[in-house]
Every structure is written in C-alpha cells, then in structure tokens.
C-alpha cells in the first residue's frame, strides 16, 4: 500500500523537519512483520510529498511469527494484508513518525503547532460495503474527501468494482491532529485489526481521540469498530465518552454478530426479542413446568430469564454450536454461580436431528426461533426427536411470521429475516404443520402471536403451545 502526505505550505520542504525524515534519502525501519520504506516522490519549495509503503513478509503473515498470540492468518492463506491499507499501516506510522505524533519538531516547533494545508492519500483502502464511510468519518473533522474507485479486474468491467478505493483527504490542520485522526480512523475503515484488542487499545483510543471523538457524530461506530465490537471495552469507552445510551451489543463472533445484528436491527424497534422471551417464560410458568429443556438455546438469553424463576428446578440448554454454548456459559456466569443455582442449570451440545436419550424426562421443551434454521427435509427428524422420543407434557415453539415481513421497511421483498433461515412460514403454513404434528403425536395445540400485530398480516412472531 502507499500512504502519502503532501503540503503546499511554503517552504514545502519543511515537511522533512516536521516528520524528521530527510527528503533526499530512502528511509527504512523494520517492523514485526516486515519493514516500512519511506521516500519523497516530490520535494520542491511549492509542494512536498512524503510517501510510506510497507513490505510485509507474506510467508510470516500466514504462518505467524511463532511467538505467543500470533497464530497467523492460515485460515485465509491468500489475503490482502500485504497490499491493502490496514492496521499494519497505523503501527508503522506510529513507529516511523513517533515524534511527529507527539506534536514536537526539533527545528520547526512553531510550524508543528500551526495549522497548515495538508493532503493525504491512502491506496488501496478497503471499504467493504460502506462506500460512504470515509465521508462520514472525515467530513465532521474538517476534511475535504475525494474518492477514486477501482475495478476488481484490471481488464474486465463485467466483474464490477473492487472493494478498494484511493482516498484523498485535504485539510488545513496541525500535522499532529491529522496523524491522530488517521491513527484511529484507518483501522476503523479497514475494520480488521491484526492484533489483540485489550484494555491498552481502549486507552489508546481515548488518548488519540481525546480532543475530537466525543463530538464526532459517528462516535459509536468508531468505538465499536476500533475495539472490534468487544462489548465490555466498547461500553466502557462510551461511558467514558459520556454516552448516555448504553448499548446492547453482545460479544458474538464477527460473522454471527453481523447476521444477528441484521435481524436484531430489523426487529429492534419492536423490542421483540425480550417480549418473546417474556412470553415463553410466562407460558412455562403458567403450565407449571419445572424441568425445562431449551433446544437451540443459542447464547442463552432464554436460559437467563428462566434461571430467575425458582419454579424451574432443572434447566438445560442444548445447542449444536460450541461457540454459542461458550457465550451462553459466560452470559450465565456458570463458573461463579452459587452451588444451589449451579445445580439447576446445564448446557449440552446436541443436535435437533439426532435422537438423544438425554432429552427424556423433562416436562417442558421449548424451541424459540429454532425450527426455521433447519432444512425443510430435516424437519421430520426434529418432529420425531421432539414429539415422539422426548415427548414432554408441554412443547412451546416460536417462529417468524413471514407475512409480517412486508412491514419491515429495510427488508427486501421475498427476503428472509436472517441469512441462516431456511424458511419462514405464513400463519397458515405454521398452523398446518402444528396441527399435523399435534395429531400424529397426540398433542393439543394452541396458536397465537407475539409482538406487534397487524390486522391483516398478523403478529411479528408466531407461537404454538402443545400440550398432552
């Protein structure tokens, strides 16, 4: 990648003094994963440009350095890290221009404290799916933003555009301020930090953003992305930035997070998830359930609600995803729960399409927003596992009402609410399925809705309560 910094403040060659790099030489410093090379493509009285490029070691990037905490990028063994503008660049900038970051200059201190016309270019900068982000980030900070797009393939236009841009920023500010902006916002633009995000990163963010982050309209997005959505850190950062609205982000894996976020955002104004959990908990309470099996418990939201009710003396959450179970374990604080509480709850890995002896002996079983994650041709296995073999006195099933999707302004017509939904049923479809299954396995079923209800389209979520 190439980073350039130009000024037309005269004499422009004073830039060399501000950066502590002589314009007529090639400079080189070594970095953990390679080296940074610096030189000046132009250096006249009128205009002076500093350029920095990284030569990262592709073999080491993939393999890891062998040091602790550096596992390498073997999962994506071909990746753009050696070429794209990324957090590697911010690390290099920090090391190469350390003094400039502090706002000091041995020979031009006054200039260092003076706003001067500066132009920054970054190329190729990845902006996956957020082309307007550079403007949202830099405009409020007083930059003029110019974007040049590039095709994915050099010769072929049929493949469309690449996710990379050349970003040009022009402004008149102190050099130190510009460097601080870049230090925070380059990783935010790339959204893929290569190093561990811990408390130190939080401090760094607050220090570099001290003067401007609090007023920035994209404060939340910057914080979330900079701290890689690590809930605890993000919350602390926002609190320290005096943000009143606490946020509701969960520490999920990136991919799931994005999908879950999409569904969450969609349904959020309705506060649907909480309503759903409250409804299911209420149904279980009313039916006198004591031993409850939560199949497809995911990250344990319902379990947490059940744990608060003394009536449930045995609560078991089952999910096929080990990752989800880990998160549930943390959410429920299983390791620090009192012994009495700990005895009430268990988490198991299991699958809905395999018969499981452990599922017997519960008097209630719930499937909250689960069945739609199964291929339709595997539903018959779930039916037998749940209704025939587990065969509890009470079964509660919730699933989206497809008809209601028309009411989501951000959901394209015919699209499903979650990328992993294999189907979503209309009320008639859900009813037909419920009635067939109930008849086959000797249950009575009562159907209703949860959440906002449209007179024609029905409720957001459908619920079926099966009893023996």
């Amino acid at each position, binding site marked *: 990648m190439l980073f350039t910094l130009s000024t037309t403040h005269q004499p422009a060659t004073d830039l060399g003094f501000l950066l502590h790099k002589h314009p007529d030489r090639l400079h080189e410093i070594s970095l953990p994963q390679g080296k940074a090379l610096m030189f000046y493509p132009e250096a006249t009285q009128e205009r002076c440009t500093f*350029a920095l490029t990284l030569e990262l070691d592709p073999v080491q990037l993939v393999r890891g350095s062998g040091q602790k905490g550096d596992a390498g990028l073997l999962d994506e063994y071909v990746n753009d890290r050696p070429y794209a503008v990324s957090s590697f660049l911010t690390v290099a900038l920090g090391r190469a221009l350390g003094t400039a970051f502090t706002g000091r200059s041995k020979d031009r201190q006054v200039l260092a404290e003076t706003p001067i016309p500066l132009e920054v270019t970054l190329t190729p900068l990845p902006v996956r799916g957020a082309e307007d982000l550079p403007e949202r980030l830099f405009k409020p900070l007083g930059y003029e933003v110019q974007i040049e797009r590039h095709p994915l393939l050099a010769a072929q236009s049929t493949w469309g555009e690449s996710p990379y841009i050349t970003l040009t920023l022009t402004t008149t500010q102190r050099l130190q301020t510009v460097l601080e902006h870049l230090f925070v916002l380059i990783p935010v633009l790339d959204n893929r930090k290569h190093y561990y995000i811990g408390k130190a990163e939080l401090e760094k963010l607050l220090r570099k953003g001290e003067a401007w982050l609090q007023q920035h309209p994209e404060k939340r997005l910057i914080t979330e992305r900079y701290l890689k959505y690590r809930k605890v850190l993000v919350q602390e950062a926002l609190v320290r930035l005096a943000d009143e609205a606490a946020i509701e982000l969960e520490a999920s894996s990136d991919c799931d997070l994005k999908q879950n976020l999409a569904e969450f955002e969609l349904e959020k104004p309705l506060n649907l998830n909480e309503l759903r959990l409250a409804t299911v908990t209420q149904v279980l309470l009313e039916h006198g359930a004591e031993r409850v099996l939560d199949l497809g418990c995911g990250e344990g939201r319902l379990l947490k609600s059940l744990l608060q009710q003394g009536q449930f003396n045995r609560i078991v959450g089952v999910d096929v995803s080990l990752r989800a179970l880990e998160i549930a374990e943390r959410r429920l604080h299983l390791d620090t729960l009192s012994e009495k509480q700990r005895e009430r709850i268990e988490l198991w890995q299991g699958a809905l399409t395999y018969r499981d002896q452990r599922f017997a002996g519960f008097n209630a079983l719930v499937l909250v927003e689960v069945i739609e994650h199964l291929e339709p041709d595997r539903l018959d296995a779930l039916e037998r596992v749940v209704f025939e073999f587990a065969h509890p006195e009470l079964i509660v099933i919730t699933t989206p009402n497809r008809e209601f999707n028309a009411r989501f302004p951000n959901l394209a017509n015919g699209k499903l609410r979650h990328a992993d939904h294999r189907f979503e049923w209309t009320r008639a479809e859900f009813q037909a399925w419920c009635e067939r299954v109930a008849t086959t396995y000797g249950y009575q079923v009562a159907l209703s809705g949860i959440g906002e209800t449209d007179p024609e389209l029905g409720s957001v979520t459908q619920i079926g309560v099966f009893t023996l």
Partner: protein
Amino acid sequence: MKTISIPEFALVVLIGASGSGKSTFARQHFKPTEVVSSDVCRGLVADNENDQAATKPAFEVLHYLVEKRLEGRRLTVVDATNVRAEDRKSLIALAKKYYARTVAIILNPGQSVCIERNLARPDRQFGAHVVQNQTRTMKQGLFGLAREGFKHIYELRSEAEINAVSITRQRLWTDLRDETGPFDIIGDIHGCFDELHSLLQNLGYQVGEDAEGVYALPPAGRKLVLVGDLVDRGPKTPQVLRLVMRMVKAGQALCVLGNHEAKLLKWLRGKDVKLSHGLAQSAEQLNQETPEFRAEVAAFLDGLISHYVLDGGRLAVAHAGVKESMQARAAGAIKQFCMYGETTGETDEFGLPVRYPWAMDYRGSAKVVYGHTPMPQAEWLNNTICLDTGCVFGGKLTALRYPELELKSVPAQQVYCEPVRPLEALNVNLSAQQEDDDILHFADVSGKRLLETRLHRQVTIYAENAAVALEVMSRFAVNPRWLVYLPPTMAPTSTSSKADYLEYPSEAFSYYAQRGVSEVICEEKHMGSRAVMVVCRTAEVAQQRFGVTSGEIGVIYTRTGRHFFNDAKLTAAILERLNQAMQQAGLWEELHTDWACLDVEIMPWSAKASALIREQYAPVGAAARLSLQALSQALQKAAQRGVDLGTLTERVAERSAAVDQYGTAWAQYCWEVTSIEDLKIAPFHLLASEGAVHMDKTHTWHMTQLARLAEHDRLFHATAHLIVNLQDEAQVAAACTWWEQLTQQGSEGMVIKPANFIAYSNEQPIQPALKCRGKDYLRIIYGPEYDLPENLERLKKRGLSRKQSLAMREFSLGHEALHRFIDKEPLRRVHECVFGILALESEAVDPRL
C-alpha cells in the same frame, strides 16, 4: 478333598471374620485381577489398608470395581468380611443387575484360629472381641444366604477343610461359543410339520423315515438351530417334537425355549393352565400319544434353556431376542426376556401386549436371530433378524443359513390358525432397517469413538472433532440417507528438489516406486470443485435403496456433505442427464445396478466458489495490483529527482510481474454460468453400485467406464490421463513433460495414483493418490509472490506426514462407508464413517497442503 464347582462367570463372595484366611484363599484359587479386596481399596483411597475411617469410600471403590468387572462378564471375587447381610445386599444387587451367578464361600477355621492370626500381625491389634462379634454375626446370617439370593453356597468349617478344597469352573449352558456351525436356523414352527419337512429338504437335509420314525441328516458339518415355539396352534405338534428331540439328542440340532414350550410344560406337569393360544391343539394331539412320550417331551422341554451364544460370540439365538448385556449369561430375568421379549405394559387394540422394540436399540456385535413376533418378511434390523414369518397363520416357514446369511422359506400349505392381528406389513415401502434409520442417535456419533475399518485398522475420532462435525452435519449437510460417502483429502507430493519449484512430479513417482508400485496413472487435475453424485434410475429406487421419499432420484454434494447447488431444479436436471448417459452407455445393465455413486469435479470453479473468488481471490489481486502500481509511480518520481533508491525499483518490478501472473492464474478457471450447458462435469471414480465397491478395480477401468458417459452427453468430460511404467525412465520423463505442458497451459496440475485403486506396501495400504500442482496455480494457494526466492526457500520447509496420515484415515473411512452401504448395514453404521471423515477434516492441518 472337597471340590467346589462354580460357574465360569459369577460373583464369588467370600464370607469370614478377620483372620479367617480369605486373602490367602483368594490368592490360591483365583487370578490376582479377579479378586477385589476391601483392604486394597482402603489402601487406594487412604494409603493405609487398615484405616477403618476410610471404610465408606473404600467400599464405594470396591463396588465400582465389582460393577465394571461384572459389566464386562468377568468372574469377580469379593475379599471382605461380608459377615452382615447388609454388606452382602449391595453385592447381590450388582450381580442381579449384570446377570451374574452368585456364589458364597464361607471360611470358618474357628474363632481361636482367627484371633491367633490377628495377634501375629502387628497391624491388626484390635482385640479378640472384634473377631467374636464378626463370627457371631456371620453365623446368625448363614441360614438366610439362599433367601438373600445366593445360588451356590459352600461352607468350609475347619482349617483342614479350607486347605483341602479345590475349585473348578463350569461353563454356562448358554455359552456355546466353541460351536462354530455352519448353522441352519429355523423360525417358529408351531406344529407345521409338513412345512418343516420340505424346508429341511430345501436346505439339503437328508429326510427319511426309519424304525424310530422321521429323521433328517444335516449336510456335512451343518447343524440345525430352532428358535423355539415348536408347538401349539398347528396340526402336527407331536411329529415336530419327535423329530426335533431326536435331532437334539443326536447332536444334530440345538433348540432354545419358547414361551409356548414353557406353557406346554406346565400343562404336561398337570398345572392348571388355560388352554388358550393354541395350547388346546397341542393338548389334544399329545393326549393321543403314550404317557411315556409325554414324559419324554416334558423332560426335553424342561432341559431347554433361554438362549445360546455361538460361533465365538458372533451369533446369538433366542426365542424373542436377547440384549447384548444378557448374552452368554444366565438369570431368571434373562429367561423371561428371551421368551417374551420386552413389553411396554400396554396392550394394543387387539388386546395383545405392546412389545418394546428392543432391536431398535441393539448395538451389539453378535448377530441376534430370533422369532416370536410374526412378520411378513424376515428382515435385518441393527444386526438382528426375526425369523417368525407366521407359517401357522398362513405365512411361511423361514430359515437363515449362517454364516452365508441366506434366507430360505417355504409357504404355508394352509392357514392353520387365524391371527388375532392381521399379518401385514406396517409400511410396505421402507424396510424395517430404513424405518428404524429414520432417526440417527446422538450417542452413535458423539464423544471419542474408535471406528473399525477393513482397510486400515482402527480410526480414532476424538470428541472435540466429533463436536465440530455435529454442527456441520446437522446444520448444513444433505439428508444423511444420501450421504454414503465423503471424499478423502489428498496429500501433495513431497517438496521438489528443483530450485524454482515447490512441487514437481518426480517426487510422486519415487514415492510409489519406493513402495514397489510398478505402474501409476497420471490424471489431469481439473480446476473446479469436488463433488459426489449419487444417482438412481428412478425415484422408486431412491426410496427402496436409500429410503429417501422426497421423489428425488439422487443428490450432488460437496466434500463437506452440503448440497453442491442451491438450485434444486438444476440438480435434478443434471442428475437426469447422468441417468440418461448411464442408460445410453449401457452402464446400468453392465453393472447390474440401478444406482451409482460417482466422484466428480464440477467446473467452472466459479460455479461453486464464486463468493470465495469475489470476496477473497479477486480482491487480493486487485489490492496487489493497485498497491504496486501506486508504489512504482511514486518511485518513478523519486528516481527522477535523483533520490538513491537502491534496488527498490527492481524489486517492485519483480513483485509486479508475480502479481500479474496471479491475476491470470485463477481467472481462467472462471466463466459465467447461465444454464446447465455452461457446466462441465468430469467424473473420475465410479465408486460404487449395487453389490460392489469398485475400489477393487484399476483406475484404467474407471477412466474407461466414465469416458463412455462423455460419449453420450457433452455435459460430461473424460479426464486426460497417462499410464506410466515407473521402471521406464523415458515414460517417467514424458510424464514430467506432460505435466509441464499442462500447467503452462493453465491447468491446475495432475494427480498421480497407483494403477490399482488400492495399493499396498508391506501389507499396509499406501497413499491412494498424490497431487502435483502447477507453478502458477500455487499462487492461489501460497500467495501471488510465493515463488520469490526468499519466500520459496522458506515455504519448502513443510511437513507432509500429518496430511498423509489424514488422507489415509479418511480414505479408509470412505471405503468402509461404501462397503457398509452395499452390505446393507444400518444407516448409523454408514453414517458413523462419513461423520468420522467430517470430524477428521476439523483436525488442524496446514490448509495449503
């Protein structure tokens, strides 16, 4: 000298006061591992064999050890005082649970002897009153031992008696493991003598009549086995009994006890029994026989036992079935189970007891052959088969030839008895096994598992890998009934010794040459996506053979078991084309099959990998291009200014060249697919068809058969290949040249395989294939600049042994899965292999290999 006879499998409880010599006795008569001692257990939990404070945990350990040994059907001796009934109760309960016979041996050398012995031991200074109390308690309890549940009780009343005793072990009657057959096993006869007569003839028995009556001489070495219910309902019960009794007596037959025999015996003994369920017919017929014959019958019936375990434990025969935990053991509960099976306690609409389908849960290694429940067809279910095909109800009389596993039957000559419940198939479309297979069990795939394969010993699947596979399998895989195979991973050839190559064919050739392979085949490696195609001639075949009722005729899935195409219509269209091509090529007829499983490569790469290309490969190329372009422009300017840039400019030029080559490396594997006609499918293995796994053939056979598909449909493509004799240097050199040409034209590379699908070296199977990838193709794997000298040098240091081991294990499991499928084994047995491959895939191996 007194001899004590104990069953070979029993729980032996030694009873005696401290100092009575139990440990010495145990040492003399039993193996050290057979003895579980309370003192030793005290030592295990408290470092002190005499620590009375540790009694509770010590006995918990003792009980645990006893339980584990009995579970494994091992004779176990409990060396503890056991003087109180309370102490013995829990041991008796364990013996009951595991159907172990119970033996009590009381050691009573006299109180004074015990006291004296304890005095001589410095660690047992607890005073005489202890022994006195123990002896008193023991004596009080002796009368109750039989009531407590001990079957064999021996009391040794003096030191002399204790010293003189010898112990012999007796095999259990149910244990006929040394009888290896071959056998002819016949289902419920119920007095149908005429049908038995003709079935025996069909089985090759020499049937005739002499002065003693009817005889049937088995073919050489064979033995008849009867699953019970010889009597009642039918017209000729005495004749059946006469023949069977004669054959059993002559050692030509074995017979187990059926519930009808048990009831008949009661009647013969004059007990008040209701003459229902066909007993009336037997009574009437037997009343016309002599009292001597009736007495003979009673003696015979009395001697019948619950079940037999035969042929080294590989076969078990019982009337209504026998669970694994009961086999070759003896107990009242086992007898009940063997006669009646398990019932749920409910009755059905015909007033008959609802039977619990124990066979559905059966996971034992012994085949269980039984009768009792009339079925329209004898069918295997989880390694068990019911041979009662309702002859007396107008069905047929069925025999199973073992070990051939052939079924033979003769139809009933008439309906002798109207069945209470109509003798109809519950589901005529799906077999019993498929019905049961409708659901797979979590316990059959979870946790650490050892899978036996016929090719490569055991393959271990670790719990953490199984856990990962469970998620993939249950969330993303196709219907498990279709999933009869998953392709193994393939190792690359060893790293090349040539300076500017990472891989070159020479190393693959020497791998095989060193292992005694004289001929290999080189097949062009298509750059598409691997897929498995299962295709049936009709949807009916799919239902009968695979149990799939969706109406699909087949499936196309990826190497992780997912649907290859998201578009069901496209999949169906491709499968129909394959079906037609198989038909036109005459392969259905030639292979005597109506289904087949193929290993194929589907092109273009972009058809499956478009997301990967669009989101990963292409962007990397774009980023590299943009980055280096911007850099060289900036460098040019600096150079014009006269800045000394050293070798940087040349280096950037070199990197740019590599990046350009990367751009073209993958682009040619991509083209747009708007219809089926834009696809290319190259089948390269005809893996299996009915009754055959074709891994016993040469690759030339596979290439030849599959090329015939290409002749009939342009969707299918033959694979370019070359046979190489490894002893002929010219042929080897030509093959290297061929590879160079292929890869220079943009091909991915080639796969080198031994001429035979499965090749061995020192009786161990060797790698079934090695891939050798082209120089430019490897840019996609190792990055655009992998072949710059400083990178290549480091990349050459790569270890292949894990990858090779993984490839071998996965290959063995795939081979095993197909064999089990063609052997019509239960789905779970096929599924566990396929599941295992998926689990192995989550082992950490460098994905670039």
